């Protein structure tokens, strides 16, 4: 949670500096973000590859456990497709791309900004932050009424780290490995899904 607030603070500081025109124009004209994105993706890869939890998790793979991230993806796409039917501001493709962040707001917002521009990037940022917040707040409720996989699926990619403590508290630590597995798989898939969709 502390990490999320720091990230948000950087966004807000950038926002304010931009709004009040406090930075020299040449800084705005050069687009460094693509290079920073390249570096981030390389580093995210290192993080995934070296994650001891994910190494352990790969050993426990079986057909059943793969159904969990698969359900998250299917369910998310069904959900946003229904939303696409009742509004006409965003296209189905755009909605699916935003949904494909699965709560990993820093990565998804940056990737989507790079491909589709800032408006959709901001939507991805806010939407995926709220996915993490909803999971943190409603995990007890989800676990109680919709089974033990519900908090994991609500957490999406965050179920491997930021929302893992609260999830295991309510569904039991025997589901921790499934939670981490689902989060790892979704985290790896996010850039691929977004690149394919947009």
């Amino acid at each position, binding site marked *: 949670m502390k*990490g999320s607030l*720091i990230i*948000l603070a*950087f*966004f*807000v*500081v*950038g*926002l304010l*500096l931009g*709004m*009040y025109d406090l*930075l020299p124009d040449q800084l705005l004209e050069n687009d460094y*973000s693509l290079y*920073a*994105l390249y570096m981030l*993706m*390389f*580093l*995210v*890869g*290192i*993080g*995934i*590859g070296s994650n001891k939890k994910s190494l352990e998790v790969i050993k426990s793979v079986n057909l*059943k456990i793969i*159904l*969990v991230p698969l*359900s*998250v993806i299917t*369910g*998310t796409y*069904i*959900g*946003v497709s229904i*939303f696409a039917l009742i*509004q006409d501001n*965003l296209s189905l493709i755009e909605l699916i791309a935003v949904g494909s962040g699965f709560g990993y707001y*820093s990565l998804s917002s*940056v990737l989507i900004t790079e491909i589709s521009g*800032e*408006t959709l990037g*901001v939507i991805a940022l*806010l*939407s995926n932050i709220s*996915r993490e917040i*909803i*999971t943190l707040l409603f995990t007890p409720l989800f676990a109680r009424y*919709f*089974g*033990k*996989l*519900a908090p*994991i699926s*609500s957490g*999406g990619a965050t179920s491997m780290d930021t929302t893992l403590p609260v999830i295991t508290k309510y569904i039991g630590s025997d589901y921790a490995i499934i939670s981490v597995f689902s989060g790892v798989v979704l985290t*790896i898939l996010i*850039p*691929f899904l977004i*690149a394919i969709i947009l």
Partner: protein
Amino acid sequence: MITVLILMTAGIILGWLLHKKERFLKVSSELTNWAIYLLLFLLGLSVGTNEKILNNFGQIGYQAILITIFAVSGSILVSWLTYIIFFRKNER
């Protein structure tokens, strides 16, 4: 975009090869944080200079939350089914 995917895959392989080098991992996780801070700062900056987004910020935020509500509801319902069919019976 293909560059992004290649870089991430290269990172995964490198991370896997070096997963015992604690110092390297510490530095790379610290750098990851700063890359995220920089990118979110830059996103903030470009949003801050974009009148179209600023004028519609309320509506954009409202839409973003609605997307999440639908996405989370869909995921929960599908995984509820998965739970009932494949997971629950093993616990009894």
